């Protein structure tokens, strides 16, 4: 269902851009541009979260790594138009997808490290659709530096939580449920690209992304609080991009 929604949105996206291209025909030299970016990302795994699940039952969730590496990719479709003599501007829509990020750590009963009796694991996957702009400078050098920014809507799915007793007397407890969150997301990036031909260019860039909020659902029997959550999930990506200009 969600996939179909995306397909619809993507189909609508191309139509909208073709229409936009005609609508902006008054802009001399406006071209349709497609960019595919992909690369590794580092993400913060957050800080220790301590909360009550029911009256008198408090636990701490302690991540066992401060960062996690994942893969991200983005497809951008938009219009490119010259800006003054030395700049090219791109405006369009970007669809970004990440690989599932596995998060793990320890659970301290009573928020007390003396009762470090469980380990946990779950994953978060991020998808976003954003309005994106890019500004490239053509200063006659072999490579064109650029900066970019985007603002859009993210769909963050937290799932597959499992906790495992690490003490033989500890009893398995109900797991947090899967949960999806819609959130605002933004990116900021910079990089450089080289134009290989009239239509093709490739480059390398850095991008900071805030995926927004993600959260697991409550566990069976939980009467207080929610599942583990990120208010902001930041990623730092190195992206190789390939661009085709019509």
């Amino acid at each position, binding site marked *: 269902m969600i996939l179909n929604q995306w397909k619809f949105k993507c189909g609508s996206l191309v139509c909208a851009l073709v229409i936009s291209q005609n609508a902006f025909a008054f802009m001399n030299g406006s071209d349709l541009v497609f960019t595919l970016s992909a690369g590794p990302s580092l993400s913060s795994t957050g800080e220790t979260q301590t909360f009550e*699940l*029911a*009256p*008198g*039952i408090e*636990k701490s969730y302690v991540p*066992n790594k401060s960062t996690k590496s994942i893969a991200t990719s983005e497809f951008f479709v938009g219009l490119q138009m010259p800006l003054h003599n030395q700049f090219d501007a791109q405006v369009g829509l970007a669809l970004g997808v990440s690989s599932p990020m596995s998060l793990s750590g*320890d659970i301290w*009963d*009573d928020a*007390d490290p*003396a*009762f*470090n*009796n469980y*380990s946990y694991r779950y994953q978060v996957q991020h998808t976003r659709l954003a309005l994106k702009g890019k500004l490239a400078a053509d200063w006659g050098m072999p490579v064109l530096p650029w900066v970019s920014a985007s603002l859009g809507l993210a769909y963050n799915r937290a799932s597959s939580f499992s906790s495992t007793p*690490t*003490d*033989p*007397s*500890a*009893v398995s*407890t*109900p797991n947090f449920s899967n949960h999806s969150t819609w959130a605002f997301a933004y990116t900021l990036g910079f990089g450089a690209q080289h134009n290989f031909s009239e239509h093709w260019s490739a480059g390398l860039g850095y991008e900071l992304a805030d995926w927004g909020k993600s959260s697991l659902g409550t*566990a*069976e*029997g*939980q009467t207080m609080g929610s599942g583990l959550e990120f208010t902001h999930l930041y990623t730092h990506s190195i992206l190789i991009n390939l661009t085709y200009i019509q």
Partner: protein
Amino acid sequence: MKVTGLIGAIALFFSGMAHAGAPMWTFTALTATTISVAANSTATVQYRVTNQSHKTKTLSVLPMQGVTHVDHAPSVMIPPSGCANPFTLTYQESCVLTLRVTGSALAEGTTTAGPLVCASGSSLQCYQPSLVDQLTITKTAAPAGPTIVVDPTEMEIVRCSSPGSMTVTNTSSTLTVQDLMATVTPGGMLTDASGTTTCTSTLAPGQSCVFAFYTAATTQDVTVSIAGSNTAAAVNVLVHIVEPINTTGDDIRTGCFFEPNGQK
């Protein structure tokens, strides 16, 4: 190589440290925890439960098939205290948890689990004894008892007449019938003919005895159930009460008093 081994050992030590936990409440077995319980019997298992958390905990036992928590009233929470249901323990406080195992309610075979003791009646925070002290219960068949036969199993007793007799025989060659009783169905009006009845509470192997009854009741059918506390099954005797043909006089023993015309 030696350095690599040492580093590995240190890494293993610290990885173990990372998960060095401890139960929040501990269980000390006060009785055997690996037990066999016959289908017709019960057993009791006791643990001392001690709260290791610095927070006060209200604990209860999660339901287990065939195992019930014997609730000790708060009035007996004086050392050595029994655990009420639920029970509240402060840091390092203990109580004795008594569990009754009912053979008839157990699942067949052997079960190793629990007891699961949880905080605030929630499954979000539960602990159990270490594996060696967990309840391991084997349900066994009820021991075979002696078998009795009764002759006859259907008979007539004439109202206000001589007592009717039924003979009970213990067919076992080794086991004595205990607590032998004849029970008349509710409402059935049969009176023990104490002069004729020979059965007592026990019946030795291979021996027989007699239950005899008078009746002054009007015509009806009555069932007499004969069994001992250790017999495999009860034997039912169907008694038809019939009207007397000759009425020759009053009989105080049976409660029968006859009018001159021969009618009661």
